[in-house]
């Protein structure tokens, strides 16, 4: 008899503990799962190869993620096709908050030139923006031009002699060069290169006369006195004390404003809780002085925009770029090559 009672007791105890345990689990699921997002590492797709500017921004975020989001970022580089391969993958990912991707101004510009597999500005939704950088216009220091006007005067006196290097047809640097030529009424021959460092090599070797690139690549040569910067494309001047003397295009009478920015984007349809949590966590990351230093080391400026502001920026940047590629004839150039 006591044996039977013992078994009964044990069974009851087990049953109760299972019930309690089960209830507990259900309870926690009901009340805390969503706020507890993220419960596992978040995959971050970088649509460029390791070591590029966007990749380094991702790695700066990766470093801070466990501290402010409670989960690590896992960076996956999906390079190729000027970013399309990675962004395609991001667009097709499930919007559960566990697959995010780095975004840059390129994802707004790419679909302008022809149908991409997904229309990124609508297939993706912006999460936050973390940093920005302007482009700068550089020339060889031994050229007599001291400012933008000197170049334009020279170009008018010597038509079709100046050539500018840029990082690929349709890239922001190409857009800037063509806009300047159009607005100033001069001819600048465009020479396409693969990336900013190739452009700088060609400029240093005097194979082209002008280049439009990101400040980080040229900074040491500007400081060293082999290259001279004549204008930046920001609304305001650069904050880097070494480069703060460079006037903007606007100051010199040209309405050329085009900034590169880095941020995070998610596939459309992210749960609002996840979005809020990510926005908060990322804001905290961006405000961390260590993150600021890391980003400034890469030649960018920290500039946080929340999801709403980022959405607005995507809209205005997209519209402006669409107008510009039309106006400058870049769209026609690319379309002509396709036929």
């Amino acid at each position, binding site marked *: 008899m006591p044996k039977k009672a013992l078994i009964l007791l044990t069974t009851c105890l087990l049953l109760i503990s299972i019930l309690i345990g089960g209830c507990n689990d259900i309870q926690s699921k009901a009340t805390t799962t969503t706020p507890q997002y993220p419960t596992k590492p978040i995959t971050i797709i970088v649509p460029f190869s390791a070591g590029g500017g966007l990749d380094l921004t991702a790695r700066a975020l990766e470093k801070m993620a466990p501290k402010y989001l409670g989960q690590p970022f896992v960076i996956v580089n999906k390079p190729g096709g000027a970013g399309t391969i990675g962004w395609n993958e991001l667009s097709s990912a499930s919007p559960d908050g566990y697959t995010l991707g780095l975004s840059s101004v390129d994802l707004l510009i790419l679909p302008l030139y022809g149908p991409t597999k997904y229309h990124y500005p609508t297939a993706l939704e912006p999460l936050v923006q973390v940093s920005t950088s302007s482009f700068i216009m550089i020339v060889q220091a031994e050229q007599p031009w001291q400012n933008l006007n000197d170049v334009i005067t020279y170009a008018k006196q010597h038509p079709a002699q100046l050539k500018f290097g840029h990082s690929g047809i349709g890239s922001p640097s190409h857009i800037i060069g063509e806009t300047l030529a159009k607005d100033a009424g001069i001819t600048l021959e465009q020479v*396409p290169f693969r990336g900013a460092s190739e452009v700088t090599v060609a400029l240093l070797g005097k194979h082209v006369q002008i280049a439009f690139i990101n400040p980080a690549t040229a900074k040491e040569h500007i400081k060293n006195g082999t290259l001279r910067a004549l204008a930046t494309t920001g609304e305001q001047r650069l904050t880097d004390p070494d480069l703060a003397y460079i006037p903007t295009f606007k100051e010199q009478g040209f309405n050329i404003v085009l900034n590169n920015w880095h941020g995070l984007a998610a596939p459309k349809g992210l749960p609002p809780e996840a979005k809020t949590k990510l926005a908060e966590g990322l804001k905290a990351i961006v405000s961390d002085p260590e993150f600021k230093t890391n980003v400034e080391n890469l030649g960018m400026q920290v500039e946080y925009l929340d999801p709403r502001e980022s959405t607005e920026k995507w809209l205005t940047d997209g519209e402006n770029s669409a107008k510009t590629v039309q106006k400058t004839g870049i769209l026609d150039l690319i379309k002509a090559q396709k036929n």
Partner: protein
Amino acid sequence: METLTMLLHGFYISIMPINLLACTIGVLIGTLVGVLPGIDTISAIALLLPFSYGMNSTAALIMFAGIYYGSKYGGSTTAILMNVPGEAASVVTCMDGYPMAQKGRGGAALTVAAIGSFIAGTIGVIGLTMFAPPLAQAALSFGPPEYFAIALVGLIVLTKLTGTSLLKSALMALTGIMLGTIGLDSLSGISRFTFGVAELDRGFDLSILAMGIFGIGEILTVMTKPNTQNNVPAVRFRDLYPTSEEGRRSVAPMFRGGVIGFLIGLLPGPAGTISSFTSYALEKRCSKNPAEFGHGAIEGVAGPESANNSAISATMIPLLTLGLPFCGGTAILLSGFMIHGIIPGPALITQQPDLFWGLIASMYIGNLLLLIINLPLVGIFIQLLKTPLNLLMPLVAVLTLTGAYSINNSVFDLMWIIFFGIIGFFLRRTGLEPAPLIIGIVVGPELEQGLIQGLIICDGNIWGIFTRPLSGTILVLGLVFILYHTIRWLSKVNHLREEVSS
């Protein structure tokens, strides 16, 4: 003299325990990356970048550089032992290294590769120490028209690399050039030959092609053989190392390879691959019995294996003195610099002398460490040949596919590597030499880019490319080369005719 003082100071920095440790870890990881087929240097360094945030910047950069040059040491191991190149630069090593291993001289080939790598690596670092800033300036005077000229002449000289017919080689090179045009072209902004397949926008990675055609192709070839036991003669300890005859024959190729690799490393593009091919072509022309090439000529291992190592040292020159990476490997090193807030450039030597000279001195030490690590490994690797091929080859296939995946994190690439493996298998069967294909795909894009940019720079006038002093000279050299070979061929034909008629 001042250089020497600074270099001594650099040695003082690089033998500090933390830096020495970083250097050792770097070259160890590099060796591993090199030996494992397909594992890519760039992804290996990228993976370690976040861990370096907390490290002292000099130590971190010494470690990254160690991985970078260290990875070129082991690349030939699988090429020599199994005919599976670990990276594109080792494709050439297969051609003579594998026949050597078949004859039981695999140990000698590995040893010569290690010693050659050390000698040429050191030649490269000496060049880097002595002439970095002036050489960087010289490299800048090469613009797109010059790249076009070099690519064109290189294509002509390198195509007839192997013994078979010139027509077959030229066809393979052309196919390579065609394959090189696939993908999104940044020069025109449009996708070419992708048939709307978005993944094809990336184009074919050189490593994917090389590992597919050579690596997977070889594995498939082995699969079709009934006998899975390795029929390599047993290697006695004495046979592990080169005979004095082999040693004597390797010395000149090592130094020639060291110099030529260094010069090629100064120019943009995949310097490691181009330099090993060039060195092979050079050795074949210098050799007294070129017929031996392709059947286990030790010069064909010593030259290329040396060349790609000094090329690696030379690629550090534009990175350190201009802050501009000329190839993928130095691009990831530049990221390493930037993460630590150091932007290399003309002022690096004067503003960060500790870092600059410490890094360079660590490269001397690292090369020595690599030799010390690699020589005993020869004995271990050679034991691999005792493994039955039906166990070894699947293992190599898994490693190759893993490595291939890691390059772009793309399953699509895995399909392509197998596809190219099958192509490679049939190429072997039909006697078409696949090496010129690799040359085509390396040189083709440079040729096209150089021509497009060169024409714009020369205002659309193709004669402009011929009248620029540098590109003109290179093109004339190429012309002389063609004329010389045509005349030789004609006289040979005449000779034959006379013999027939008499």
